[in-house]
């Protein structure tokens, strides 16, 4: 079920909200309603994925308890649990990618597994890993099955994040405060939801028409069209993902639960390090806390070169996390190189760049990286990038006939409105927390 679908807006969410607030009146445990509603939400698209997530809940709850109680085998149990979870993720999401690469390199013909790709598996696997690590460090205070099940399946953030930690959610699940109708939260949550809905339906879905047609006919694009195609995708992915997260935050807020923001005006970033403090923030924090810092700590000595190497490894994994494709891996590596470049500039050539210019350069670097991200193969990506820098294909007749070509005019206006919205307006978090709504 998607947040912007009729079934969610008209039936699922109002009914869930109603049942939760009724539950507080009749003293029925609202967490059970929330778990059942989340399982219905998850299985609406494809019920075949349900057994896997339920199995994952039971096994990991058991493993978490074992880890927390164990003394001698603690590290072994943690290692086993993480391998178990990453193994499931690998089997469903990455096995065929590795098999096809192995076949290509060794000329073998190993059959692919052709397993389905369970919805949200990357998100809930990462969340479970954070829980297991917290169990290892004895941070889990309220170790209850209902809490853990809700932590894994909580429907506002189950499919597309933000990635949260167990204690962050559970500390807010105080039954007395949780399912009481709070008008201020309903109002703010509704505004966030509407902002997210507009981003998704009126921006992302409309921009996708430019993107799909541009990438389909990439060989026939001219200079201007290739720029419009690449920019349209850069805005589409932002409006799509951040819109979805806004709707998630809005839904959770109406349930009196605050989720962390995941996007903080990322296209206003002034370098790639700054971009990753603003784009998919909870994923960046996960990679930092669970891969980057432990990897650095495992080194015998920390030199600048080794830190940069670890940075590249982390961004390689960040790219791979997006999906089993060399295009995503390359996208990650381009960002890794960007971060290394920023660190080198700071260390060896510490000069300041005029802020608007550094925002412009960063945005264009990100825009080029998204051409790689969206392309199906390198041939398509390089063809579009080549056209973006091939000034000889600049067609001035387009401007002469601008008011005759209705589709071109509509696309141009949509892009200009997108640029204005992203660069001029404040983001949804600022708007909702403005003084007018306090």
């Amino acid at each position, binding site marked *: 079920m998607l947040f912007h679908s009729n079934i969610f807006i008209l039936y699922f969410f109002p009914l869930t909200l109603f049942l939760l607030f009724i539950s507080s009146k009749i003293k029925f445990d609202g967490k059970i309603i929330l778990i059942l509603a989340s399982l219905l939400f998850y299985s609406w698209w494809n019920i075949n994925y349900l057994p896997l997530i339920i199995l994952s809940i039971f096994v990991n709850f058991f493993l978490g308890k074992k880890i927390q109680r164990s003394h001698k085998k603690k590290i072994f149990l943690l290692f086993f649990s993480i391998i178990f979870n990453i193994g499931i993720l690998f089997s469903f999401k990455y096995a065929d990618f590795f098999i096809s690469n192995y076949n290509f390199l060794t000329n073998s013909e190993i059959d692919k597994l052709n397993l389905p790709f369970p919805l949200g598996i990357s998100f809930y696997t990462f969340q479970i890993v954070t829980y297991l*690590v*917290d169990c290892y*460090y004895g*941070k889990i205070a309220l170790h209850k099955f209902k809490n853990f099940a809700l932590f894994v399946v909580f429907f506002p953030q189950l499919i597309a994040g933000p990635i949260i930690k167990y204690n962050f959610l559970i500390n807010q699940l105080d039954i007395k405060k949780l399912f009481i109708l709070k008008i201020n939260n309903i109002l703010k949550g509704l505004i966030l939801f509407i902002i997210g809905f507009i981003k998704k339906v009126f921006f992302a879905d409309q921009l996708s028409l430019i993107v799909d047609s541009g990438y389909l006919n990439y060989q026939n694009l001219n200079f201007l069209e290739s720029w419009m195609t690449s920019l349209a995708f850069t805005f589409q992915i932002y409006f799509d993902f951040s819109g979805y997260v806004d709707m998630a935050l809005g839904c959770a807020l109406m349930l009196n639960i605050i989720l962390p923001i995941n996007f903080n005006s990322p296209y206003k970033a002034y370098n790639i*390090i*700054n971009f990753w*403090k603003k784009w998919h923030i909870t994923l960046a*924090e996960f990679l*930092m*806390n669970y891969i*980057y*810092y*432990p990897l*650095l*700590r495992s080194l015998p000595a*920390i030199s600048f070169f080794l*830190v940069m190497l670890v940075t590249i490894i982390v961004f390689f994994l960040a790219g791979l996390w997006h999906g089993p494709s060399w295009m995503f891996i390359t996208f990650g590596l381009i960002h890794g190189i960007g971060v290394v470049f920023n*660190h080198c500039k700071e260390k060896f050539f510490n000069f300041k760049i005029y802020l608007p210019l550094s925002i412009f350069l960063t945005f264009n670097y990100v825009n080029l990286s998204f051409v790689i991200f969206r392309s199906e193969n390198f041939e398509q990506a390089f063809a579009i990038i080549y056209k973006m820098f091939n000034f000889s294909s600049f067609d001035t007749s387009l401007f002469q006939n601008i008011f005759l070509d209705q589709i071109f005019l509509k696309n141009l206006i949509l892009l200009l409105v997108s640029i204005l919205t992203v660069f001029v307006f404040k983001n949804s978090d600022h708007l909702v927390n403005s003084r007018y709504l306090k």
Partner: protein
Amino acid sequence: MSKKLIYQILARNLKISENSINIRTDTKNTPEWDSLAHVRIILELEKELKIKVRNDQIGELNSIKKLIKHFTI
């Protein structure tokens, strides 16, 4: 003493003046405080103050307030 040392180490690693650091300084409001600087700050504080930081705590110590709390108890 430890508090002063924390301010000094922070200022040195972030390449900013000690006067510009206050109790509200954190990774969000200080652009210079990136992941590389953070690792260096933690390692230097561990070495100087002989107090260990676990792997899961590194990311959590993301403000001057939290650093002081961790390293002065």
